[in-house]
């Protein structure tokens, strides 16, 4: 997903002279071709996230469209005030491309595990967030991001994940995709959690004969209120799934929406996500999924509870 994202940025930059890439201190050879072919719009500015976000804002003020890329935790936590003031208060078209959203950097510990990036980005006025479910969707949304004129946080999740999207689907920032039509049960998921949701939905139908739908919301903010309004009243049970702390995260945003617009339906929602604590183990991302209940099995159990 990460390679696809960066390749797409390079491809777009070849034809769009406004596009700029700014990295902090990324691994060797990242976007080497970009650096060689378009050196004037390729910047690697060192471990200085505060300055980098400010520099990107300055470039956007002059009409450029910077894509800023580094590890999610550093890109969201370290330079939060720069994101709030330089990007969001000025409402500039800068894309923050966060590597390792969620538990991707499992073995590197809590300094690198972006467990609350969705929550802290979501509360900033003018900020939008996308968390694609696979590399196809990543490519399509990065392409669409060129038309997006406000700050955007692009959350890159797992690498080498399954492909569950098809290029025939309609990808657009701000639009949800119904991956599987619901019966009485609906999973609303974001990022790679949609992969778990789809597997769980199939499992439940097969074993329990319960029709279970999956609504994938790659755009966490702004919420696609239209698609939510269409499906929420039609189902009996909803479970939101996210690779983020429950506090203030994706599920919270669904609850807020339902509380405002469909208050009678709030009771049918439950949320699956990370608890209000730092991750205290290493291992792999999959192992941490298991350890934190972000599994097909746990999702099935929640439905049948």
């Amino acid at each position, binding site marked *: 997903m990460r390679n696809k994202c960066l390749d797409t940025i390079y491809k777009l930059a070849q034809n769009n002279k406004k596009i700029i890439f700014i990295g902090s201190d990324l691994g060797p050879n990242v976007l080497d071709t970009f650096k060689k072919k378009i050196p*004037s*719009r390729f*910047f690697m*500015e*060192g471990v*200085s996230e*505060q*300055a*980098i*976000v*400010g*520099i*990107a*804002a*300055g*470039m*956007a*003020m*002059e*009409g*450029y469209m910077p894509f800023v890329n580094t590890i999610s935790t550093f890109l969201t936590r370290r330079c939060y*005030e*720069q994101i709030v*003031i*330089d990007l969001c*208060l*000025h409402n500039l078209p800068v894309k923050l491309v966060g590597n390792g959203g969620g538990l991707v950097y499992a073995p590197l510990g809590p300094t690198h595990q972006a467990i609350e990036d969705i929550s802290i980005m979501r509360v900033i006025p003018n900020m939008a967030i996308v968390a694609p479910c696979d590399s196809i969707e990543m490519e399509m949304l990065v392409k669409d991001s060129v038309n997006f004129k406000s700050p955007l946080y692009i959350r890159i999740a797992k690498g080498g994940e399954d492909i569950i999207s098809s290029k025939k689907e309609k990808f657009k920032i701000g639009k949800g995709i119904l991956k599987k039509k619901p019966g009485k049960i609906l999973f609303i998921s974001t990022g790679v959690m949609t992969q778990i949701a789809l597997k769980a939905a199939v499992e439940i139908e097969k074993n329990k004969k319960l029709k279970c739908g999956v609504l994938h919301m790659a755009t966490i903010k702004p919420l696609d209120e239209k698609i939510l309004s269409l499906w929420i009243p039609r189902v009996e049970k909803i479970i939101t799934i996210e690779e983020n702390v429950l506090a203030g995260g994706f599920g919270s945003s669904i609850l807020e929406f339902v509380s405002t617009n469909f208050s009678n339906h709030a009771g049918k929602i439950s949320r699956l996500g990370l608890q209000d604590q730092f991750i205290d183990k290493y291992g792999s991302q999959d192992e941490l999924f298991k350890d934190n209940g972000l599994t097909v099995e746990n999702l099935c159990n929640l439905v049948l509870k």
Partner: protein
Amino acid sequence: MLKELKVKLDSRSKLLRKSIVRALFSANRGHFGSSMSLVEILRVLYDNVVFFDCKNPKHEKRDRVILSKGHGCLALYAILADKNFFKIKEFDTFLKLNSILGGHPESSKVPGIEASTGALGHGLPLAVGIALSLKLKKNNSKVYVILGDGELNEGSNWEAMMSVKKHKLDNLKIIIDYNKIQSNDFVKNVLDLEPLNKKFSSFGFDVSEVNGHSISELKKNFLNFKNKKTKKSSVTICHTIKGKGFKEAENNPNWHHRNSFTKDEVKIINKSLL
């Protein structure tokens, strides 16, 4: 150094200070000392150095001026009103509910304000991004960013300075309003900046120091930057007096921000402007 800074204010410097005082009295509060130390720096920039168009504040060929120490905004408002970016009567609305003039400047509200500032340590990175962009666009405009001394406590400035050096940004002028006092106390007591000149030199800057209230020194220094072709980035340390122009306020840490002016203070301040 401070003794050498005793410059008698001329009528134009007093006029700009009158505007600032008009706003301060209207709201009965504001960053008094922080604005007064800046007046001559901004006056010289706008009177003699930068290109601007008040009818088209976003003119592509304009020079970009960013007041990173946003709390000194009253001085910037004063010169912008003087240059007809907006009407001076706006000063009577300073800090009021629907005013365009807030306690820190906002680019979405005030014509001529390049960037919204107020949280410190933001202006220089923005200026670096702008300066890099101007070079990419082959636009010869210059970028002037004014930082406070206390503001240099913020690490983001030093991060950005490394980028200034790396990219040889000779179209960027960093101006330090070195009035030696920050919010809490004298800078040397809070977090000493000295040796400041050496700090900048070691970052690769061409450093000059001027009396920040001397019109001739400022003019010579800024025009030298504007007209001189150099591949070195440059910093001007402007030695200034916080609260300049008002005896009670000068070099007095209690006048960084003031509210509830007493009748006596109003009288003394007005008298200073005669």
